[in-house]
């Protein structure tokens, strides 16, 4: 079954239209000056699944993630996190919503003046009354979960690309969010590191039941780990399972997959 194309002029939703969806974007329009990024984009991301936002460079994958995280306001349209519409919330109201979210940025976005330990401990120090000992225990448990060792006193600048991604993931997960937004987790990593991060994300998703939304242009890893795919194209989206995307007859999607070298046989990538 081919993926469903979102209609640019779809009516605004009064609430999430899909029982299982955890995050829903409805009829979102966004332009930066003359450049229109989204023109009625609608898509949804299921609860406790790994959803991958796929698309060519500059199509708005990271921007969509920023919209979901409330870092970018759409010009028009709704963004639902569970039962809450967030696109018109004030920054202070948004802070409360963000306590349910975690985000891993493409470059890590670790505070470079603070040690790795302090970076990961920061959300706990800011939002909980845990003792120093408890914070230390939780941070080290998180380090173990992402496979980081002896990095407490290191500054982010002293970490390799893969370690930086792990530290960023540890920080994003330390407050046990419901939804994890992950921007290009595999960019700049060698194939071995890609596999390690991939396995880590899948394990976290399966064990903690997190809703994960990733942007990615790495077809192989998308096929291996995604439960569902949102393919962005021309300011709108095609969404479906990996199988549905694979079997889509949409020529734009086929062209993208062929250009990625995996078009006719996505199975190869897996």
């Amino acid at each position: 079954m081919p993926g469903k194309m979102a209609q640019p002029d779809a009516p605004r939703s009064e609430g999430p239209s899909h029982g299982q969806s955890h995050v829903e974007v409805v009829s979102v329009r966004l332009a930066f000056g003359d450049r229109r990024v989204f023109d009625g984009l609608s898509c949804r991301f299921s609860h406790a699944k790994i959803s991958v936002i796929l698309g060519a460079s500059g199509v708005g994958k990271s921007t969509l993630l920023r919209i979901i995280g409330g870092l970018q306001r759409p010009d028009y349209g709704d963004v639902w996190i569970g039962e809450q519409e967030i696109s018109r919330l004030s920054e202070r109201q948004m802070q409360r919503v963000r306590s349910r979210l975690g985000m891993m940025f493409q470059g890590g976005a670790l505070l470079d003046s603070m040690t790795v330990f302090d970076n990961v401990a920061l959300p706990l120090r800011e939002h909980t009354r845990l003792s120093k000992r408890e914070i230390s225990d939780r941070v080290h448990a998180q380090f173990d979960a992402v496979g980081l060792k002896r990095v407490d006193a290191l500054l982010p600048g002293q970490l390799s690309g893969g370690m930086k991604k792990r530290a960023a993931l540890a920080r994003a997960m330390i407050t046990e969010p419901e939804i994890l937004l992950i921007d290009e987790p595999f960019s700049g990593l060698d194939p071995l590191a890609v596999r390690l991060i991939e396995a880590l994300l899948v394990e976290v998703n399966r064990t903690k039941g997190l809703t994960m939304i990733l942007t990615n242009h790495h077809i192989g890893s998308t096929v291996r780990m995604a439960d569902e795919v949102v393919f962005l194209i021309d300011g709108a989206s095609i969404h479906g399972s990996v199988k549905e995307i694979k079997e889509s007859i949409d020529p734009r999607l086929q062209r993208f997959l062929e250009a990625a070298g995996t078009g006719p046989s996505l199975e190869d990538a897996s």
Partner: protein
Amino acid sequence: MLELVRKFGWRSISIVHGLGGITLFGSRLAFETLAPPYRLRRLIDDVYNTGVLSLAIVCASGTAVGLVLGLQGYNTLVRFGAERSMGAVVGLSLVRELGPVLTALLVTGRAGSAVAAEIGAMVATEQLDGLRMMAVDPIDFVTQPKAFALFVSMPLLSALFIVSGLFGGYLVGVGLLGIDAGTYVSSLENNIDFRNDVLGSVLKSVVFGALVGLISTWRGFTAAPNSEGVSRATTGAVVQASVATLMVDYVITALWGVGV
């Protein structure tokens, strides 16, 4: 012609928008300064970076300015047979004007630019967005301690600049030109008034500290998220803070100093 009007209109709107933005930002900084949590550790770190690390340049510059004031003052005063007033000339020049203004310009170049560049780089590398996603307000966590550090450091650095300048004037006047030490010091004491001169100087340095702190953090905070944006923010912070310092200096001098 229409294009010119359009450009002028856009420029005007952008200036008003910028002024509105910096006013709101300044209000937020003031609010975050008064409201808990008080980030003492971060404030101490930032006072160290902006204040303590500026000590050497401020003291060296103050001494150099005092040496020059001593020489120039003596050459002028000796024509009128008033070289005994050298302490007053050096002291009044430093306390009323040169101390607060030159300190503000030095701190802008040394610390204001660093603050703007650091915050701008944090914007470019999504560190501020990272804080937002952790439900941590970047104005409260990053910019407020830096702005407040500049605010509290400025009067202290200005005082040190003045003391260094007085010492430089003393070295030239007493050590080089042979003016009696007691004469230099008593001229200084008798002619500097606490309320009109010293308090005016403190007022200026406090206002300049607030200005430099506000402009430096604002320029960094609103930097475009790329290397050119960081560069523009840094340059803009130095230029705008320096010009604002000189213009506000005139206003304070006109309101506080003239005719007193």
